[in-house]
């Protein structure tokens, strides 16, 4: 069927004086299938669009080419206008003759403007309609990890009316903050109680994920609980798997023993100081020996130092290289600690730590004094290295998710921050993303809850149907696209008793086209940026070469 292309040139209020518009118009009229060329001065304004719309209707135009300012400004408005005129919004092809032509070059740019217009015309020939459709989404949410962040996600989602399944590997909910007096304080007990009483939250303890398939709106998950294996479906998944603290004995050159204690042990002591045989005279905290680039040890050390002063009255030393105070309120706590007599000793070279006479001897060069000093501590609280939770790698491969350079959840790509993953519908909150603090974890939770709610609450999602599509006839089931898709949006589906082919999830697809470029059988069509369309643009340049 004959297509009828309408070309609309805009001279931006007649200001694009280095383009000879009548000449462009004249040459554009000669292009094949072009039935109308119009010159306008303000296509971006309402009156300009109205003019264009009446021309489209009168001229029975079915493909619209607009040569004007950058598509980044008005593409959306133009697409809406096409819908108003009864045309499919995808039948639009734009040429940037302002920012990337008239404004970018000195002297006459008529030739270039014409070529850009011709490129857009050639591309328009190959445009196909795109239809929006509603796809159902499963409104249930999977939360992996029953610590502070996981519990908070579950509670907040339940408050908003979304049912969650909270899967926890351990015996009970609570996580790493259980029993710790944190600053700010987190109400672990009341959260746990609230979850138990909430009928919209299903808690599965001693449970682990074993398999994960599907995409956003339709994840199929297998959960192993004891001897049972449960199958569940979810619309979205939120990871809150926390972190694993580790004390690296090598960093301290002596085995963790009675006098080199973990933060956990200190907490125990602080809870019941009367149980100690002897009041410790000196307690030391050592930081920046295992990992200089971590906040959490500083935050814990500062809070604990104050607690020690209050409850044990001991001398307190904090040995560190650079104090990490880049969290809210921490500078204040640091100053308070100093006011209360906590001694901060800064070093450049690692301190030498050893056991002597039943105490811990810390020798280092105090850079403020400019001298070697020796401090004997009754207890030295060891810095904990913040590591990814055990099983993070396995979990990430179950859900085909990337991990970062240190093994934590969520790739380090800034476009994903704060809580998204490269796979739509999967989020990571809290410490599982890497070094974090409670306040930031709390903000993470709110972001993830909001994003999940927006995704699932309506029960359906609007997608452009089959914008990127695998042709089942051409698909050779090589699985390349499935492996290559950075968003995990492609899966195998059965088409008949004999064949499976790749299929792209409209909802999970982010429209990058990487699959289309890599498919060896050229079985993937990307409407708008298909091979035909791109090659047509290239050829149009060639016509005048």
């Amino acid at each position, binding site marked *: 069927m004959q297509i009828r292309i309408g070309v609309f040139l805009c001279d*931006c*209020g*007649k*200001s694009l004086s280095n383009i000879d518009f009548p000449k462009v118009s004249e040459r554009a009229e000669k292009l094949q299938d072009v039935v109308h060329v119009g010159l306008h*001065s*303000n296509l*971006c*304004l309402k009156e300009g669009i109205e003019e264009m719309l009446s021309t489209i209707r009168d001229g029975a135009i079915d493909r619209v080419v607009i040569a004007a*300012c950058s598509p*980044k400004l008005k593409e959306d*408005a133009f697409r809406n206008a096409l819908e108003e005129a009864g045309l499919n919004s995808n039948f639009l092809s734009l040429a940037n003759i302002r920012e990337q032509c008239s404004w970018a070059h000195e002297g006459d740019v008529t030739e270039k403007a014409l070529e850009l217009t011709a490129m857009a015309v050639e591309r328009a020939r190959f445009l196909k309609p795109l239809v929006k459709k509603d796809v159902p989404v499963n409104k249930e949410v999977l939360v992996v990890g029953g610590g502070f962040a996981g519990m908070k996600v579950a509670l*907040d989602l339940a*408050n*908003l009316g979304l049912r969650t399944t909270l899967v926890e590997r351990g015996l009970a909910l609570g996580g790493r903050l259980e029993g710790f007096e944190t*600053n*700010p304080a*987190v109400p672990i007990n009341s959260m746990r109680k609230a979850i138990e009483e909430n009928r919209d939250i299903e808690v599965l303890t001693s449970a682990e994920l074993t398999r994960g398939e599907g995409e956003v709106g339709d994840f199929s998950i297998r959960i192993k609980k004891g001897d049972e294996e449960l199958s569940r479906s979810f619309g979205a998944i939120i990871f809150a798997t926390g972190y694993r603290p580790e004390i690296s004995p090598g960093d301290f050159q002596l085995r963790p023993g009675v006098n080199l204690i973990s933060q956990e042990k200190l907490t125990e002591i602080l809870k019941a100081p009367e149980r100690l045989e002897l009041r410790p005279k000196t307690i030391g905290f050592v930081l920046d020996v295992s990992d200089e*680039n*971590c*906040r959490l040890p500083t935050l814990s050390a500062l809070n604990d130092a104050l607690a020690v002063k209050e409850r044990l009255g001991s001398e307190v030393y904090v040995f560190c290289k*650079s*104090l*990490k*105070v*880049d*969290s*809210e309120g*921490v*500078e*204040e706590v640091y*100053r308070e600690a100093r006011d209360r007599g906590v001694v901060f000793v*800064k070093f*450049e070279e690692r301190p030498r730590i050893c056991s002597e006479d039943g105490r811990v001897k810390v020798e280092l060069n105090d*850079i403020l004094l*400019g001298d070697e000093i020796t401090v004997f501590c009754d207890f030295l609280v060891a810095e904990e290295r913040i590591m990814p939770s055990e099983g993070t790698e396995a979990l990430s491969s179950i859900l085909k998710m990337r991990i*970062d*350079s*240190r093994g*934590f959840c969520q790739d*380090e*790509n*800034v*476009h994903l*921050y*704060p809580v998204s993953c490269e796979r739509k519908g999967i989020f990571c909150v809290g410490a599982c993303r*890497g*070094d974090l603090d*409670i*306040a*930031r974890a*709390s*903000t*993470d939770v*709110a*972001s993830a809850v*909001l*994003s999940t*709610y*927006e995704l699932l*609450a309506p029960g359906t999602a609007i997608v452009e149907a089959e914008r990127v599509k695998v042709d089942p006839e051409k698909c050779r089931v090589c699985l390349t696209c499935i492996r290559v898709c950075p968003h995990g949006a492609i899966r195998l589906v059965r088409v008949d008793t004999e064949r499976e082919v790749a299929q792209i999830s409209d909802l999970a697809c982010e429209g990058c086209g990487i699959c289309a470029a890599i498919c060896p059988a050229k079985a993937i069509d990307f409407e708008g940026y298909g091979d035909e369309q791109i090659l047509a643009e290239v050829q149009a340049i060639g016509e005048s070469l």
Partner: protein
Amino acid sequence: METSSLVIGGGVAGVAAALALADNGSQVYLIETEPSIGGWAASFCCKATDVCTKCSVCVVPQKLQQVAIHPHISILTDSMVAGLSGGIGNFKVEVLQKPQYIPPERCIACGMCAEVCPTEPKAIRSPSPEAVPYSYVLDESRCLRLKGETCDLCRDICPTNAIDFNHEPEKKELGVGAIIVATGFEVFDAREMGCLGYGRYPNVLTGLDLERIFNREGYLKLPSNGKDPKKVAFVQCIGSRDESHGYCSQVCCKYAIRFARLIKYQNPNAEVTIFYIDLQTAGKGFAQFYEECQKNIRFVRGLPVEVLGTSSGELEVRFENISEGTVKRETFDVVALSVGISPKKDSWDLARTLGINLGECGFFDAKEPLNSNETNVEGIFLAGTCQGPRDIPDSIAHGMAAAQSAMEVLERCK
């Protein structure tokens, strides 16, 4: 009960909050005092060398564009909050809009008005390249017509008849269910530390100046003579962690290290030194290139106390090298002051209008530490640096968290 919301401030946090609420189906009014949205981040630069350094500046343009085309967001530029009444679920907000002599919805950015403007410097200026909306702006203080003289050149030439000198300030009343304050920050004025020479010597710059220079030019040349930098010093904690600013500004160590790295990459023979108290290098994605930096950037513990110009146009910096225990003088050709995030001085105006509290450091006060979005007024939430220093990703997260709190209010109103 109102189901729409108001976001005060169009910087990254406000934009993130507005998008989150609008995507959920609510009508959002986004008001901004400047003629365009985007705040500070829109004017910042990418700090990548051969790899991305996670500064997050590149995430901004897309978000601004999404706001511009979103059917549920109404942007009101040149606007501020003049009054508030009512309460949660039912706020009545009085918005005052400055006269928009060139209304953005009529301006096609052809630039002809600026071409014919007779004043020098021009009273009509082109928008910054990143501006959303991308429309020309009239500077009242320079315009002849607004000063009472006869001049109609711009109005006559405007092809869309957009320019109207009869525009008056407009008062609008908006009914909203929830309010998010995202008014951002001010940078510490480095001139207050006179001994460091900012404002006196052209080659003493702030971190903000560097952002602008790289955003425009793509590389750093000495402001005094246009030559390549050879010896660069960064001075941390300017306007933070001191007597009058009892907080860490959170962003400065990271941006200084990124800039230091970038300058070194562009000028491999340059010597770059960072003077610091404690280096803040924690955070996802940062450790990897910090470690690499330790090889070719000099880190000196100890802040300079004085910067003096020499007769040869260099800058002599006097500092204590704490690690060595010596007081030294060294010359540099550029000194970059890492200025901190400060609360806006006019925050107390808005605080009074809305009835929300300011905290000790001058930022808006969050009610509780575990929820740093809630204020003392139900239904009014905080987003971004107006509540405390934070970087771009944290501001976006904070904005989304504020939107979540606001959404809970609006859901109850439905």
